[in-house]
């Protein structure tokens, strides 16, 4: 039996991509295996850990729960794309300075999720930051440093207007 496939066209990190993919392939596998964007990781493949988080048409989604064919015509952004545009340069810098990661496996998902809070920054408490990140599992850090890094970034953006 040969696999059912479909051709899809989408924008990934600003570049137009057209590929024929197996219909059952998940978006994150497509991004990693077909396009080489290995910044998105697989931690559970059932929608719990958030390691596979990517942006599809400006919304954060779990790349392991969405099929590649569902992204046909969409704008997809991964951590590599966010890195290139400089959109979260301050957040990245604060993650590094605060050591808000150890193994780094959760980091791309954390950054993409935390970036939502930076879109239109408004004052948030640590509890709210924790709540916002509660769909992203990190086994290494214990979260404290991640909350610090996000908090610092929001506060600096607010101060600098």
């Amino acid at each position, binding site marked *: 039996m040969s696999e059912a496939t479909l051709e899809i066209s989408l924008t990934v990190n600003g570049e137009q991509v057209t590929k024929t993919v197996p219909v*059952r392939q998940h978006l994150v596998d497509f991004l990693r295996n077909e396009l080489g964007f290995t910044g998105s990781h697989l931690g559970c493949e*059932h929608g719990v850990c958030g390691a596979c988080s990517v942006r599809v048409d400006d919304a954060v989604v779990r790349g392991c729960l969405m099929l590649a064919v569902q992204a046909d015509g969409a704008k997809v952004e991964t951590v*590599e794309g966010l890195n290139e545009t400089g959109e979260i340069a301050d957040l990245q810098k604060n993650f590094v300075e605060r*050591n808000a990661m150890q*193994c780094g*496996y959760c980091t791309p998902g954390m950054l993409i999720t935390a970036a939502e809070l930076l879109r239109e920054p408004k004052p948030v408490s640590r509890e709210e930051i924790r709540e916002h990140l509660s769909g992203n599992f990190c*086994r290494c850090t214990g*979260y404290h440093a991640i909350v610090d890094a996000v908090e610092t970034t929001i506060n600096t953006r607010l101060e600098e207007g």
Partner: protein
Amino acid sequence: MNKETPLTLLDKPNSYVGRTLSRDAAKRAVAGRGRYTDDIMPARTLHAAFVRSPYGHAKILSIDVEAAKQQQGVALVMTGAELAEMCTGPWVGTLVCFDGMKSEPQHPMAIDRACWQGEPVVMVVATSRAEAEDAAELVTVEYEELPVVIDKETALDPGTPIIHPNLGDNLAFEKTIETGDVEKAVAEADIVIEDTFTFGRHTAVSLEPRALLAEYDPGTERLTIHTSSQCPHMIQAVFARTLGVPEHNVRIVAPDVGGSFGLKIHTFGDEIAATAAAIKLARPVKFIADRLESFATDIHARENRVKGRIAVTKEGIITSMDIDVRSGAGAYSQYPRTSVFEANQILNITGGPYAHENYRASTQVVYLNKVPTSQYRAVGHPIGNTVGESLVDQAAAACGIDPMEFRRRNVMRDDSYPRISAAGIEMRDLSHQQCLETLVDRMGYDALLEEQAEYRKKGIQRGIGIAAFIKGTAPGPAGYYGAGGAPISSQDSCTIKLEPSGGVICMVGVTDQGQGVDTVMGQIAAATLGIPMESVRVIEGDTDAVPYGGGTYASRATAIGGEATYQAAMMLRAEILEIAGVLLQAEPDTLDILDGHVVDKGDSASRISLAEIGRIGHFQVAELPNHIQHTLSATYRFRLKDALYIFTNGIQGAYVEVDTDTGFIKLLNHWVIEDCGRVINPQLADEQVRGGCVQGLGGALYEECVYDSAGQLQNATLADYLVPMAGEMPDIEVAHIQTHTGVSELGAKGVGESGTGAAPAVVMNAVNDAIRPFGGKVTAQPMSPETILKALGKV
């Protein structure tokens, strides 16, 4: 720092040692440029998937793989029997240091019989993982179910089936240690408290699962394995020996490792199988465990029941402690580190902070039809600390003494080292008293007691917990591995080289999984050599590059690898100064190195740069007299001499709120004061403690691998096995007391497991403090809301 500790190069003003510096690996991680095993995709890579036993215990009657073999994309289907033919023999997970221990020989994949649900039975290798899984579904295995042994309490009872008839019973190991006269102490005590504690099974849940990519070149007969591992040399030895490939032909590379926590110091049959496939097919074969098979095959840990007893005088002095531990292993003892370390460590450390002289501890480790158990972060400590610290709290309450004051009266005194603990282990360079007083201060203990009382008046039940601890770190060769006979090194090495450019390459046997081991080694090397951090590159995790070593386990990287790096850098420094002395016509001991330049001592003016020494030393050697035959490199190996471990100590505090209607626990505050000796990078040390704490809190509150009576793991998904997420966890305040260990010049002890070791104890004490006015008491972990409500008599 200790007053007596002599000043070293590391203590210079502006030294890199003792300073927070950020990690290069972090910069890579935030850009999405981490490189984990699954990110490496050589051309023509095949993928392995496994047919695993659906039963806890079953005879394998027949296996039909024909349909699977016909599937498109399938390159190989291999049974356990076929794999066994490629192996030198089964594993036996015993160590000679565990007297009388026994285990059934274990093949990498089941042959006639599967002994736990999830044990690999057939491997399918195909061009993609999806195709391999499709084909695996077409494999037909006929099983005959056998009775399972699930309950550790009845595992040794007559009438309970014996999992491995050759062993005669289900007992893996038993041991008793005894110091002094416990029965006499109990008979003479004013107060005796007894209790029973139970601990659920956990597993490590590293976010990156187990991962391996094996490549074999039939021409050179070289086997290269990229794998998410903490211990490349151990993997090299075990894989080479199991598959009959000469060790020196095997290269193990650990690229970025996405969390490990002890899980990745072990060897697994499915990984051997995938490697065998790579040899057989001469093509790259990748095996990445998915989350479901991680739960069903990664080592488990912590399943123990402990009966404990403490005897005290009415003045609140502990006179004895005794414990009996029933430890639930899996179907086999995990090779090569065994499944009995946990129980052994519980015996070693329970009641460890205290000065009592009567102690008895016994254990029986029993086989069960469950996933094999082995070392997981802070092996045994969460259990030993919970038991000891809960008994101490209960004794304090019975004496009517504040639990902080009770501990103050009983901890080993800071001026009493070296000494032998009640468990018979040498303790030195500890600081229980100083840690305790620091905690009192950091918690604002008295004010917190008042606040708690105010909340009680409002009907809000808050609890304050305290737990002192010891932690065995950096084991030595006299102990379990060297003496035990496993191919696991307890020494570690550093080779350090001056390059022609003046840059330094530092190759270490210890490995990084995100702790910052590479940064820490770089800091030690740069500080010792007097060069900028940017001039040092640390290489780890590649057996082709680094000197032989044990890797990272048991909080040993900084304590053992750090000392090796320090001493190797001292040797290289001496060589550099000797060459400089010849070139400058100066006595080497009048020279120093500062910022990459040789200078006169006490002066910062450059006499010659390290780049110039590198250039002359490598290219213009004719400028040196013939008797100077320098290598501009040095290797040093460090190991403990006689000690079993470098013990560390500390104390944790917790402040929680318990909702007595719902049983929910809210963690309000958490403090850790610990003594890991010399701190190399304060931020990295803090974050080890914080991350470790949360891992301990997860175990205490949420995590458990639940089996039903048929041996089926009930919650093998990340949706059902609860792990701590950001929303539930508290901020954690960390402080370090730095009593240098006397066993090395660097003075560092381990820090990576101290958070995990005592967090379950302190949070349980806090919860029990909160519900004590209601007569409630919890002694089972995880402390689910249901457990709390039961303790309160509400369900």
